[in-house]
């Protein structure tokens, strides 16, 4: 059986423009010949510093930008090269969670409207009381009180907003969740709630997840395997504890040496 997500020789090069009329400026290899697989139900941690290409990689997987070269397959189906309409249809299968839930939720929609819209991408005929029931079930699943479904995003705290964003990502019943720094903007005490929630969702729903973060301690905790990215390339990939405790790539060692640690334990 093929892996759930297979990325083969994926590249994305952006042209560098020099001067007013473009000219020949070379290119930036934001993603440079990346190959990796993610198994069903696995959480893959993707770490790297700003500018390493991890966001470009996630936008490629989400089919938001076309790759320069390479293929992406989800559950055996090749996504790269599909016509635009088909990409839109398939997009339900992979959903994203962003760092700043406030920026990614429509401030003028109630939680009900946001979630109902997302639910209907998968079940267009859902309406009336069954739609309300589905929204309530979704809110329940992410630990929100369904009694709040008529409220607006600004009426919620940061942690609750991230729960709403997670609920919206779950609504179209995706097979793959791409979480881009989902806890970086949250306070320590809220961060632990969201991490617990993501682990619980993986257990209950068998979700496959790519968890992007700059925080190695968080990734070590939540991910099954860790991929370390530098300058567009995956420099190391392996089982999380192994990468964390016995890194083989020099760059991983540099990263690990840099994280502040609580020494006295």
């Amino acid at each position, binding site marked *: 059986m093929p892996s759930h997500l297979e990325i083969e020789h994926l590249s994305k090069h952006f042209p560098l423009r020099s001067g007013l009329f473009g000219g020949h400026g070379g290119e930036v290899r934001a993603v440079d010949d990346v190959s990796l697989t993610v198994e069903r139900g696995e959480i893959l941690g993707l770490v790297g*510093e700003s500018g390493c290409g991890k966001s470009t990689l996630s936008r490629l997987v989400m089919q938001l930008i076309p790759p320069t070269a390479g293929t992406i397959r989800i559950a055996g189906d090749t996504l790269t090269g599909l016509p635009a309409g088909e990409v839109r249809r398939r997009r339900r299968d992979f959903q994203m969670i962003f760092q700043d839930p406030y920026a990614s939720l429509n401030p003028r929609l109630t939680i009900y409207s946001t979630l109902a819209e997302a639910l209907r991408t998968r079940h267009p005929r859902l309406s009336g009381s069954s739609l309300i029931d589905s929204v309530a079930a979704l809110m329940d699943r992410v630990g929100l009180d369904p009694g709040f479904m008529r409220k607006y995003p600004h009426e919620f*705290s940061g942690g609750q907003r991230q729960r709403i964003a997670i609920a919206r990502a779950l609504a179209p019943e995706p097979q793959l969740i791409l979480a881009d720094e989902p806890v970086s903007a949250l*306070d320590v005490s809220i961060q632990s709630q969201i991490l617990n929630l993501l682990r619980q969702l993986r257990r209950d729903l068998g979700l496959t997840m790519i968890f992007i973060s700059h925080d190695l*301690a968080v990734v*070590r*905790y939540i991910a099954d395997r860790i991929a370390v990215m530098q300058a567009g390339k995956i420099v190391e990939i392996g089982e999380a504890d192994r990468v964390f405790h016995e890194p083989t790539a020099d760059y991983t060692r540099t990263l690990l040496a840099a994280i*502040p*640690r609580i020494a006295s*334990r």
Partner: protein
Amino acid sequence: MPLLSVEDLRVSFHTRNGIVRAVDGVSFTVERGQTVGIVGESGSGKSVTCYSLLGLIPKPPGRIEGGRAIFDGTDLLQLSDPQLNTVRGRRIGMIFQDPMTSLNPYLRISAQLVEPLILHEGLSRAAALDRAIAEMAAVGIPRPADRIHAYPHEFSGGMRQRVMIAMALITRPEILIADEPTTALDVTIQRQVLDLIKARQAELGTAVIFITHDLAVVSEVCDQVNVMYAGRFVERAPVNELFTSPLHAYTRALQASIPALQTKGEDLYTISGRPPDLSRPIPGCAFAPRCETETRDQCLTDRRPELVEKSPNHWVQDCPGCLGPLRGNPQS
């Protein structure tokens, strides 16, 4: 005698939604050369504490309701703005989370670095420029004599933070207030900036007040740590002691909720609920609604728990509810 002694500082903001007690009776001291940490979550009042010492909170809506901040024999809270100008940026320097918001984008770095020297020390422009270049070299900026004439946007985030540190330390202040100085930086750059602050501090003997939400950063840079919650200090201890034997329920819960200290596969401890609404008076223990100790029903409700010294240098709010063992948590 401590270099800085803050006693019962109270700061509030008078807003349309009522009086928000952002800092509610905070006391601490800073000794020469020492690094004192203030750790807390967003909205706990850690930045307001430091900003109010330098007259940097907007008034109105901000108002200093009481307290003293004795620095070298004078109460900073009583100084007029012109008097504060002789302290701010000269004897007490400051660096912020985002260097881009505190550097003037229209001015070359050189203009911004020489300004405090000309203003505070009366140096000539040429002499000030020499000192500025030396300071750029001291914070590890390559080719400082050329780079000093660049604009802030021509530097990377880490280099900008170095420039900020150079600017804050150029007048050899006795205290450096660092407000989340590495939060916006990548981990390898954070390492360089933390090391740089420590190195410059050792060379110059500067005391540092380090504000952060990051417990790991605290554990690396601070000598003494204050844990802040809802405008109050709930615990203060030497850094190692705070991590080996935390006393207050909030401190213990925080430590149990960070992934770095937990075994993989085990659920993280979570603190239920939200921080209290500071626009309502809190007569008793501010953590009581979220406290999950076995003795939580003993949390003080009628009077505020006092900070008491439980063991030498280890202070904690004396709330019987918050000192009991945490429920369902192997860490406690």
